[in-house]
């Protein structure tokens, strides 16, 4: 118990902070911060598995998040029959061509010795294959995108409950990680960082511009929800009764019946959105706890010990007969798959998929700040990092506004410098993040909750 005192203290402070937001700002804001903290926690757990357990640097988190989001769209949206009729065949043909191309390349790689001719012929196959696929799929894609472009213009999905997409998102992200890992994991650490960053940009470019699949920058809105809708709740009897019961003290003070009804209506509207957010919190909490249990078990298993051995001394681990390449690939896939889950969760919560919003600042570098600040190698630390950093990211603007007003209290509102500072309040969050990262790296390089390995 004593050993875990700092963990408990850190988490209690975090919870108190969120509760304070609930009391002083509103419960809606507090819960939406809390939900995004949970999603960030899932992402940081993914990144932490790669960086903390194995020392692999993955700057491609944005790409896996976006793939998870894509999974949410492909699973939950109803299929657009018309689009399938218009161009489904062409798309399937193109997919088939891709499979054939990959198989041919595999065959060549297996069958022939490594030589210049082999390399050039593979390059030729890839280039001509891409051209062939592009020109053969073109009419199909145009036909699909022409189907009611204001509403659909894409193939749609499978029309399944969106919750399944959390698993499918993990599969998508894991699949991409398999390809990326096969190709790039041999690189030195900083090259790997750059390569993964650029690959994730390529993924985003594809998601943004392949409208037949994702609707691109036109966004997909109104995804199905795993939680009830506010409008339905507001007309449901048991929910109104519940709100009445919760607020019976407040309501009984109001004498006038009509006023009381109006107050109740207001409470029900507020309560419904809080209730929906609570549903999401419950779902996300389950995911976080399950993942936490699994990752903790893995960390203390023989496999976890082996990963740390590989991280700390690759050559020695290799000499002990551990397959470093294979384990690196495995952990790269696992970590990315977890990030994929988070991506799907994010889209599920928002109810919309906006490819234009995936930016490396928010989805790669911020997650890295979370991992470093929280404590790499320690799952509790990573989750705490997700909470702390997201909380500061959201609350940075109000805090800096308060500070600016505090320090410039004597200066009139019309002062140009003060007005300029107040106008640029949203950008203080970057400053806060950067300074936070620099200070942690300098004075507490292992993070708030450092890695602690108990040998049992």
């Amino acid at each position: 118990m004593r050993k875990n005192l700092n963990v408990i203290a850190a988490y209690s402070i975090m919870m108190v902070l969120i509760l304070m937001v609930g009391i002083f700002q509103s419960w809606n804001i507090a819960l939406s911060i809390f939900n995004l903290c949970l999603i960030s926690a899932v992402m940081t757990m993914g990144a932490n598995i790669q960086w903390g357990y194995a020392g692999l640097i993955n700057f491609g988190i944005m790409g896996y998040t976006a793939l998870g989001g894509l999974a949410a769209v492909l699973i939950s949206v109803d299929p657009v029959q018309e689009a399938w009729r218009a161009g489904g065949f062409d798309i399937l043909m193109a997919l088939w061509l891709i499979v054939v191309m990959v198989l041919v390349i595999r065959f060549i790689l297996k069958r022939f010795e490594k030589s210049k001719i082999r390399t050039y012929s593979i390059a030729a196959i890839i280039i001509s294959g891409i051209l062939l696929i592009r020109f053969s799929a073109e009419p199909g894609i145009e036909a699909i995108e022409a189907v009611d472009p204001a509403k659909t213009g894409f193939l749609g999905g499978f029309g399944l409950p969106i919750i399944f997409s959390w698993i499918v998102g993990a599969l998508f992200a894991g699949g991409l990680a398999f390809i990326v890992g096969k190709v790039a994991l041999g690189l030195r650490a900083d090259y790997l960082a750059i390569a993964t960053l650029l690959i994730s940009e390529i993924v985003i470019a594809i998601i943004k511009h392949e409208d037949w699949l994702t609707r691109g920058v036109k966004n997909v809105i109104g995804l199905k929800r795993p939680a009830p809708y506010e409008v339905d709740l507001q007309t449901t009897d048991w929910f109104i009764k519940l709100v009445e019961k919760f607020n019976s003290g407040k309501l009984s003070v109001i004498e006038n019946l009509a006023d009381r009804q109006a107050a109740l209506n207001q409470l029900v509207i507020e309560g419904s959105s809080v209730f929906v957010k609570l549903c999401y919190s419950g779902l996300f909490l389950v995911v976080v706890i399950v993942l936490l249990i699994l990752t903790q078990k893995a960390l203390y298993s023989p496999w976890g010990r082996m990963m740390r051995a590989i991280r700390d001394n690759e050559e020695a681990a290799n000499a002990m007969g551990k397959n470093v390449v294979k384990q690196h690939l495995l952990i790269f896939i696992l970590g990315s798959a977890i990030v994929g889950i988070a991506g799907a969760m994010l889209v599920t919560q928002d109810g919309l998929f906006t490819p234009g919003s995936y930016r490396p600042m928010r989805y790669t570098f911020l997650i890295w700040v979370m991992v470093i600040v929280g404590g790499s190698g320690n799952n509790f630390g990573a989750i705490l990092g997700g909470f702390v950093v997201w909380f500061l990211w959201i609350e940075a603007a109000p805090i800096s506004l308060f500070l600016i007003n505090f320090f410039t209290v004597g200066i009139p509102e019309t002062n140009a410098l003060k007005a300029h500072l107040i106008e640029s309040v949203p950008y203080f969050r970057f400053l806060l993040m950067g300074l936070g990262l620099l200070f942690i790296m300098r004075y507490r390089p292992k993070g708030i909750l450092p890695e602690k390995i108990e040998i049992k």
Partner: protein
Amino acid sequence: MDFINAIILLLNYIFIPALTYGSQLALGAIFVTLIYGILRFANFATGDMMSFGTMATILFTWYFQSLGVSLGVLPTALLAIPFGIIFMILYMLLIDKFVFKYYRHQKSPPVQFAMVSIGVMFVTQAVVRIIIGPGDRRFFDGEKFIIKAREFKEMTGLNEGLALKSTQVITIFVTIVLVSLLFWFLNRTKTGKSMKAYSDNEDLALLSGIDPKKIVLVTWIIAGILATIGGVLYGLDKSFKPFTYFNNMLPIFAAAIVGGIGNPFGAFLGGYVIAFSEILLTYAYKKFFMYILPESMEPNSLVQLLSTDYKFAVSFSILVIVLIYRPSGIFKGKVL
């Protein structure tokens, strides 16, 4: 005649824009490569440092404009560049003193440096946005065109016009001058040679009495000059927006690595490799083929290999391929 038209078309839409864009990338790539070769880390704050230098230059440009000082047909920004450079260098030295120096003395691994540079990236981004705001800013003044498309058509009687913007000429000219000076410095002067020695083998260089503090100082000064001028040229040619500069970091990295990281000449060429392949692969060749092919064979489609949306993706794919098959770069790395 059609053949000349086709050539002019390519010059106008591919060659000159790619040369300009490539020059801008090349300056950034040399900046990345110098930092990598001598200070030994991948600087993720590259794009934002460039935007800081550009911001300082823009502020001075506005100041000069308010004083009524101008260079006539040339943009006022050229006058403001030296002042921008001074501020950029001061900022870089400040960051080096408070951030990077500690890790250099600790002999931290490159990954830790990269993480720290991410912190610097966040801070710089905040500073730039707080001072000048996140919006799009144009600060070009002076004569816009050297040759206008219409004038060219009238002059030569061709169908295709060739437009030559003054920013394009300025960019290419400044790049050539700056890069020649830089290579002269690196190859001919004592300080340049000691920088090379330091990059090749730190311990040996220290043994032979090279002062590491001086090397680091000179590196940041050169980096400041390159970052500011590269950023200002890009801003003059297109426009200044902090977010675009952050994004430009990626093709700049691509150029530096394709050219062989640590090798300034490779980075210089790498900039053009990236720029030309981006533009060549995403240009629609329909009009070109209409000129050179007989009428019966004219293409119906746009004859575009990739849509322009994938412009960035092209350079990243090139980079990924180079990283996998030739991690030392096309022109062999680490020979600063």
